[in-house]
């Protein structure tokens, strides 16, 4: 729950509901982008974001995303558990 996982925005689905499809840890899931897509802040397909419990919390550059992913893989079990829970997610 406390682990932030980098994911890449695949498609903005609904700007009213602030929903986007993102690729995270090899799966595609819907996430909320309300905290990175407001006022002058924008995300678009291809952008990397740090995702906590289904919400993009901040934008990441690609190098940062990759090094964060690598660090998470080294964490092992806690990251695996987070990914497992993510796979069950069906945000609408």
């Amino acid at each position, binding site marked *: 729950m406390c682990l932030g996982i980098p994911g890449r925005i695949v498609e903005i689905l609904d700007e009213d509901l602030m929903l986007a499809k993102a690729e995270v840890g090899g799966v595609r899931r819907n996430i909320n982008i*309300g905290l990175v897509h407001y006022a002058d802040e924008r995300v678009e397909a291809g952008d990397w974001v*740090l995702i906590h*419990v289904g919400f993009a*919390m901040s934008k990441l550059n690609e190098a940062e995303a990759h090094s*964060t992913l690598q660090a998470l893989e080294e964490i092992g079990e806690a990251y695996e558990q987070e990914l497992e829970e993510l796979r*069950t997610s*069906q945000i609408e």
Partner: protein
Amino acid sequence: MKYVDEFRNAEIARAVAAEIAALTDPHRHYKIMEVCGGHTHTIYRHGIKDLLPDQIELVHGPGCPVCVLPMGRVDEGIEIAERPEVIFTCFGDMMRVPGSKGNLLEVKAQGADIRMVYSPLDALRIARDNPDREVVFYAIGFETTAPSTALTLQRAKKEGIENISVFCNHVTIVPPVRALLDSPDLRLDAFIGPGHVSTVIGCRPYEFMPKDYGKPCVVAGFEPLDLLQSILMLMRQLDEGRCEVENQYGRVVLWEGNLQALKSMAEVFELRPYFEWRGLGFIAQSALKISPAYAAFDAELRYSTPGVRVADPKACQCGEVLKGVLKPHECRVFGTACTPDHPLGALMVSSEGACAAYYNFGRKSFQKVGARE
């Protein structure tokens, strides 16, 4: 320096460790607290302690939301989950946290409808799909997860979904740190500030540490090298007699935080006058409750939770470990009556709890320390 080769930037790690050693006064003992449980995990996982001079002691802070939840709140969550009309939803981390009469996993085995969710938005979907049931979301976490609960309730209100409520256990990071600084038990020299919490609240809330208490703080990222660099930044401040808040994780954390997240939190939550923390007792304005505008979604009101205090088991010393007064292995039940498979206390349950991290990764160093004692 046996672990240093595991670092992706072993060269840089070596150089940083050498500079830390060069700045260390051999006659001084440095106590640096890492506030965040994620940092505690990284420190043990990568043996950061073994890269530091003996004079530098890392003290684990209260930054694991599962660990600081008092047993009374765990019991109240379980009581709500046992209600037949309720679908109880929570993060996986909560399932094995012991209450005074068992945990959620056991209650689920006895027939309660408890569902693990990845996101509060999954709880909202379950409410939408089950209009004749009452869905309760067990909200837990610091400012990292509080905005997600806030945005979920804003959406529930907008959509007119009424069969969802939140059992709100969100806590805030600054008041317990202030409580620790006020505590006579512990003398600390500097703080490693949490990374992901700071993406939400920014760096300004930590300014009281240098201003009011004369303690430097560096907000740090989660990779082992981030932690080493943060320790170096703190050692430089201590060496030069500077005292300020610095941001080592500037590539992700903005100084002013996430304004949209703060705005949503301000609408959906208000500060509780006080809240009980395991080990730290009651701390003023240290937790969030659902605001009057969202009172219809407050599970505490919907189910009239009594707010009962329940003492930890006598043998359990989670409180002292949370305050940094005891190291995990110094607890009288560590590794014997309390293990990750059969946890007595919450610090052994969560992977970010100091005891679980110590048990899984720190035992080599712990044995080394034990031998010296």
